[in-house]
């Protein structure tokens, strides 16, 4: 499998207290463990089971995913901040493999 590639879309600059949208996605097959491969054997379960977003070190959103979340897990949400900061995104697989991304959010003065 190709290495999962995380992607995040959010505005580079935002206004104090004004909600903005964050869109996230990671390329990942989310193998349920129910399907059979071409060789007729069961494809082992392999999913992203946890997704966490932090802003300046504080947790903004966390998601516990089951295998019913589609391949290439996508999440979007809205948030509003008071100060510029560093946004961190973390995707964790069942086996502990972790994929990270971070983005700077600038608050317009």
């Amino acid at each position, binding site marked *: 499998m190709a290495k999962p590639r995380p992607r995040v879309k959010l505005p580079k600059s935002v206004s104090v207290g004004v*909600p903005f949208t964050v869109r996230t996605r990671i390329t990942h097959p989310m193998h*349920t463990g*129910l399907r059979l491969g071409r060789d007729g054997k069961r494809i082992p379960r392999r999913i992203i089971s946890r997704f966490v977003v932090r*802003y300046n070190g*504080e*947790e*903004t*959103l*966390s*998601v*516990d*995913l*089951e*295998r*019913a*979340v*589609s*391949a290439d*897990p*996508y*999440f*979007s*949400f*809205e*948030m*509003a*901040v008071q100060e510029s900061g560093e946004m961190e995104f973390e995707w964790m697989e069942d086996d502990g493999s972790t994929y990270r991304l971070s983005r700077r959010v600038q608050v317009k003065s």
Partner: protein
Amino acid sequence: MAGASLAALAAGLAGFRPVRIARAANETSRAIAAFTKGTVPAEGGVLLEVPEIADNGGAVPIRVSAEGARRIAVFADGNPSPGVAVFTFGKWITPAASTRIRLAGSQKLIAVAEMADGTFRTTARPIKVTAGGC
């Protein structure tokens, strides 16, 4: 020949499906009880947005939201296992999120929200799926 095996397959599926869904429905109430620690959630106060009909069960867009929620869990009572996702809302966020999910067939989706005061709210939405995606 091909017709006969197709008929056998259809008969096999027809025999298998209801059993699986009945079991899953029972599992769903247990999964919800596990999330609420046995509390029966009150109806309303949580919004679950789903399309009425989904052409592709492999990626059905959904959105959950609940003013004042700490967590929202989503369950699908016609899937091989009922759990879909649990969202935990922290700082800065509006308690709402969108994602895409897999549904095995037409069924009922249930959202359960844990509010800041520790109470639970729930809402359910039926959904028609024309091509399953599990």
